[in-house]
């Protein structure tokens, strides 16, 4: 694809993250560091998963029997692993929060505000989303510069790159905001919030299995966007409620 198209696809997947970065995260250096370390963490998780599954890929399937089962196991295991990693991330964050609070006391500055904590969660989620977008979408774009483009048979209405950017955008949204929901859920001990995040992640992952069927992406992608929208709305509602509560207190 041409360079212009390539840049277009890249912006499609990462545009909102970029604006979020410039508007919110680049103002505070600590958040930039959080994004970078979060991206590194998820990259390492991807590498571990790749290492584990290396021996089994590519799945040998006959054209008649589809590769539903092995792929679903793959997605299931990956999602479970990543959700476990999220809990670990939360624990590390708790320790960091204590250190930061102690430091704030020492330099006589106010402790972390609620919005600070949410911003850190947002930055962490963005790192996750960016890692996903970069490694699943962007890194496939760059070798493909040149005259032609690539179509997948199962989804032949659009070039492959466009489809993957759209999916990446949905996932970036889901990842970014579920981290906020998750951190909030862990902080307040809210079971619903805590469970919603892995469930959403799993459902989204499984939805992409629909893409294995021919023409499946026509159904799969809108449903994925429904999930992303749901995550956004839930996160917004939760944040609004939490802030209103802390104001009234």
């Amino acid at each position, binding site marked *: 694809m041409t360079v212009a198209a390539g840049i277009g696809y890249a912006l499609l997947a990462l545009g909102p993250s970029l604006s979020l970065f410039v508007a919110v995260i680049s103002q505070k250096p600590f958040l930039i560091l959080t994004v970078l370390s979060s991206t*590194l963490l998820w990259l390492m998780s991807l*590498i571990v998963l790749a290492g584990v599954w290396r021996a089994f890929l590519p799945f040998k399937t006959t054209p008649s029997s589809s590769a539903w089962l092995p*792929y679903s196991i793959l997605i299931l295991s990956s999602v479970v692993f990543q959700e476990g990693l999220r809990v670990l991330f939360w624990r590390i964050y708790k320790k960091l929060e204590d250190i930061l609070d102690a430091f704030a006391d020492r330099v006589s500055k106010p402790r972390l*505000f609620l919005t600070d904590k949410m911003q850190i969660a947002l930055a962490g989620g963005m790192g996750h989303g960016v890692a996903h977008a970069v490694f699943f979408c962007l890194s496939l774009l760059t070798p493909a510069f040149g005259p032609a483009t690539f179509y997948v048979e199962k989804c032949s209405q659009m070039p492959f790159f466009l489809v993957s950017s759209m*999916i990446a955008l949905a996932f970036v949204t889901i990842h970014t905001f579920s981290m906020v929901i998750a951190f909030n859920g862990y902080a307040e001990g809210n079971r619903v919030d805590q469970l919603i995040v892995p469930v959403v992640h799993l459902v989204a992952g499984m939805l992409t299995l629909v893409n294995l069927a021919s023409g499946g992406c026509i159904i799969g992608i809108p449903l994925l966007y429904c999930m992303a929208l749901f995550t956004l709305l839930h996160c917004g509602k939760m944040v609004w409620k939490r802030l209103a509560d802390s104001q009234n207190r």
Partner: protein
Amino acid sequence: MDQNQKPTSLLDTLGEEIIRILTPVSICMFLVVILVSILNNSSDSSGPSITTIASIAYSEDSSDSIWDKLKGALLNSLVFVAVVTVVTFLLVLLFYLRCTKFLKYYMGFSAFLVLGFIGGEIAVFVIKDLSFPIDAVTFMVVLFNFTVVGVLATFMENFAIFIKQGYLVVVGMLVAYWFTPTWVLLVAMALYDLAAVLLPGGPLRLLVELAISRDEDIPALVYEARPVTDHDSVPSNGEVQRRVWRERRHIESDFIDNVEASSESNPVGSNTSNASRVSGMSLSLETNERERNLVAAEEGRVATLDSELSAPLIQHRIDVQLNLQEGPSDSSALEGIGLGSSGAIKLGLGDFIFYSVLVGRAAMYDFMTVYACYLAIIAGLGITLMLLAFYQKALPALPVSVLLGVLFYLLTRLLLENFVVQCSINLLMF
């Protein structure tokens, strides 16, 4: 969401110094990657094929077997490290004999060479690739001016800091593109750096001790991050400002502006009550008076220094200049991280170059490796900064980042790529 007047939060300025070092490193790497992709895309062998010190013992031939290539690479690396060691000792000798003027002039000269010749050659390649219409005379004039300003920037002290930093980044980028080593060489250099800085007999350590004992500066090309406050009254770069002892004098507003001293507990957890520790972002300095309150001009923050903390702040840097076309390399790469006199973090240009070289090498394969290596290098840099805060002496910046970078490159290339491509082709993502 909230009302506009909110008390400034802790999060506003934490970690700012690290970002100020990360940004130019990232820019340099980014530029090298772009350069590599432009110039390696077009044709395979139009790039510069040079016999440098890096390949003096053995030039790779595609028909050789793997074992031969490995042997050749090892031989190359040994020769290179040996040459670098010899030259470093030579530098130590010169410094000992107080030939600092010579070193300074030599640095300016190498800056001239790099900017003029290497920059010119790379510019010619780029122009040829992009079919940029420019005539020879204009090109010469522009190049000459560019080079001269660059040399002046590295020489003079009170130069506009932004231009100076920009030029350092450009120099780093040019050398990084030119110097394409093998992976074995990178690892060898990392190990050498580790040895040279930390071992008692290492040349770099000798250099640092000499400089301290004489209370002199080492002429070198160093990148110093801008001090956190925007007040730049302390000249940076060009000359290494070496600070052994930092005395807090009475409040001169200039002076305080340049000091960002916030005590911060070390994330590793050793939180002593007496000594204010650092975590790579700023350094509590030795004070003559106890209980001083520093007011950082920007934020109006108040930091209390609890006690005296001796902070030998050492940095030393000599740029790696591989004098490629004129014969054997003249100076060696000394890498290390230290703290500048204004409290900002200083990073040697050699480090810039090696990081960019690593990323450039990764770019020759694929962009996925580039992202992975970039993250690994940044992580390595962060770890080194934390160690710097912990140990508070000159540390080699190269080993952690290079080793992590190489590790991630291999892992990505072998494991991740296959996995991700398999999933993405089937439009399966999670």
